[in-house]
Structure formats: C-alpha cells, structure tokens
C-alpha cells in the first residue's frame, strides 16, 4: 500500500481528506504511483503532470524520505520506505509568496 499526500487544493478537487492510499502493481515509481492516483481520481489528470507528455508541471514537487525526487526520471524506483508504506510520497505545490 502506497501512501500519498496531496496538496490541499488537490485534496479538495479529489474530495479526499488526509492521505490517499493506493495499490500499485509492479515497480513502484513516481510514474506508476501517478498512474494509479489518476485512475482512482480522474479529476486530477492534468493537474500534476501534462496530459500527453506526462511531464511534471513546473510548480509541482515530489518529496519523500527528506529527499527531493522532482528531478529524478519518472521511472526511478521510489525509496524502500515508500514502497513499504512506512513513508508517504509527498506531492507538493512549490512555495509561493510575495
């Protein structure tokens, strides 16, 4: 079971509270987690990565186990602690301020 933490605006859009838990078949990567997430919550398609290219949106970041995974290839296996459910994958909106 993979744990995913969404930013507040996407939790509202998907109508979920707290963490999302997903069953991910095969290798657990950012790509496979996002595939499972978008399959469960189709309204999230296009909000984290582009529809066709699957490229991460510029102001989205992926964190896990105190590491920034945003620049890793999307088919890189996620840390063991994420695969076991000990740690969540954090999908984060980049900081904004003024």
């Amino acid at each position, binding site marked *: 079971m993979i744990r995913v933490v969404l930013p507040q*605006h996407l939790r*509202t859009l998907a109508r979920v509270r707290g963490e999302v838990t997903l069953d991910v078949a095969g290798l657990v990567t950012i790509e496979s987690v996002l595939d499972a997430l978008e399959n469960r*919550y*189709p*309204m999230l*398609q296009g*909000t984290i990565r582009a*529809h066709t290219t699957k490229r991460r*949106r510029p*102001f989205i970041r992926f964190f896990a186990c105190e590491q920034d995974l945003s620049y890793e290839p999307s088919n890189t296996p996620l840390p063991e602690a994420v695969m076991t459910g000990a740690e969540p994958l954090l999908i984060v909106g980049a900081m904004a301020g003024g």
Partner: protein
Amino acid sequence: MSSIRLLIGTRKGAFIITSDGRRKQWAVDGPHFGGWELYHLKGSPVDPDRIYASQTSSWFGQVIQRSDDGGKTWNPPGTQPEDLMGPDGMPKGESNMFLYDGSTETGQPLTTHQHYDGSQRPWEFKRVWHLEPSLTDPDTVYAGVEDAAIFKSTDGGKKWKELAGLRSAKGPLWQPGAGGMCLHTILLNTGQPDRMFVAISAAGSFRSDDAGQTWRPTNKGLMSKYELPDPDAEVGHCVHCIAMHPSRPHVLFMQKHWDVLRSDDAGDSWHEISGDLPSDFGFPIAVHAHEPNTVYVVPIKSDSEHYPPEGKLRVYRSTVGENEWEALTKGLPQQDCYVNILRDAMAVDQLDPCSIYFGTTGGQVYGSSNGGDSWVPIMRDLPAVLSVEVQTLG
C-alpha cells in the same frame, strides 16, 4: 417574481450572489473553489441551472467545473460515479484536456505564432479565459483559451475539440499582449446560428459564417498606431472586448486597447466612436438590454496605468452608440480610486428596467438599476474580480 443571479469570478474563488427582482438585497454564496483563479463562469441560456466555470492555477493548471443545480454543487464533467456506468466505461478525466488539433485529417497541423521577441513559437495551452454556452443546447459550450484558440464541447464539457480553422486566419502573425495571447470574447447569435465572432489579444476580431469551421479577420478600420508597425494591419490588433445586442447582430461595439469602435456590417468595417471620452483605453464594453444603441465603457488612463483617469471611477454611457458620451458617477468613488475593471467584468441583466453590473480589481461589485444614472456597491472587499456574469431567472 423574477430573480437575479450574479456569477463572480475572482483571483481566489467564485462567488454567487442572488437577489429578487428588486435587486436591493443580495445573498452571498462562496467562495467556491477557494484559492483558485476563476477566470469565468457562465450559465446556459437554455438551462440556467447549468453553469460552466473555468478554474485555473499556476500550480495545478486548468480545471473545468460544471454545476447542474444553479451553482449549489459542482463537479468536473465526466468524473462522477455515474460516469463509471456509462457506455464509455471508466471516466477519462478529459474535461480539462485542451489539445490543439495537429491532425492531418483536418488539414490543420499545429502551427506557430509570433512571440514577444519576434520568434515563432508553437501554440501552448495555458488556461481558459472565457466559456460561452450554446444558445440552444445546454450540452454544447465553447471555450476561448490562451494561447488563442477556440474549443467546443458537445457533451457538457467532458471532452473538448479545437475549431482549428481559426488559426488559419493568419495565426503566424498573432502575438501575445502583456496579459498573454488569449481568446477572450465569443459572441453567438440566435438569428444566424452559423455565425460566430471571437476576439483575441493581440490578433483582432474574427468571424465565422459556417459554425466555426472557417474564419476570417474582421479588422478593417482598426488603427493601432503605437502598437503595430503597420497601423491598419489585417491582424495583430489588441481587441479587448466586443459586445452585441441580440436584436441587431450586425451591429457590434468594440473596446480596443486604445479606441472604442462600432461596426454596422457584422465586422466587415469599423469606425471609431471614442468621441469625448476622457480616455479611450479600457477593457469591458456592454450594451443596454432594451436600448440597442446604449453602450457602456469604463475608461482607464492608459495601458501602463491601469486605473481610472484622475482617480475617479466613471462609467461612460453613449445613448446613440456613437461619439457622444456622458459620465456616470453617482455612487462611484470620485477621488483616490485606482482600481481596474477587466474585460469580462461587466454584465447587464434582462429585467426592465435592466441593471448594469461591474466588478473591480479592488474587489468591489457595483450595480445600477436605473441604466447607470446611479450605482450602489453590492459587494466590497472580494479578491480581485476577474469576471461578472448575470442570469435573469423566472
């Protein structure tokens, strides 16, 4: 008794404000989609409880929302449990997917447009600026987007298809204005359902006479002396808004970057009617519900100073639709006012007498139920208002 529903899009959510036909007391519902930019909301003329909304974010991109109960509840079209049981199987999450038509079948390969630096860039979708529901079918709706293009949905917003013929109307010469290269105005016409008008910053106005399949520029008479090397170029003009009275679909009124103009031949030619306005720069333009020659604009000082001249918020009205304008000031701040009124932030209801409404970037929404002679603030202290639409119900 009739009632009024205002649909207000702001930088940080949508607000729905309702009143009975007296338009004295207003009930506020919102914010909906708090924290998101709501560029535009508009209801179907056929089914007023069906409302489409453009919800956008620099972080999370474009979302289309739809309400089928007058704005009480909302859903991205095609993502509901009932869609699971539909003939199309699993929901596809395509309601926010705006893909430019690059297919060879339609003869419209993805083209390029001018960028700020003069280079050519391919079209890249950024957001939906304007939603225009069909006048006859609640499931059909048009979207004007940035980078400038028009999309159509015939299934209530679940899927969108570009009307790619528009980009053939000299698209490589279009260029973004300071706010981006956006298609912000879509005008439909019950009398001639195949005729449509759109306006684009900075490309100009365009007309289709075959339901959006082919388009041609309609900018003859526009002069952009300080914006274009060729002031009367066929395309490239920064048109800010176009308005039309449904009883006279061949008469159009335009607020351009600079200049207010009129066409009496469905856009084939335009002549300036700026007359004695204190500034002919501005964004919205609107027509009175029952007087097709009565037009409203809100002069703004300049393109680099997006606030009213002299710090006085004044709506100007022409009752002849030509060069004679009068300032409407009663109830509006006449000193130290430095707000802007954006292109989709003015609307007119259909009651008699009709009310005119507009929202400001300072978060106020004003209304006038006497043709503009006097104004009252309906809302104050909202986030910056991006759009105001009105529905006349019952």
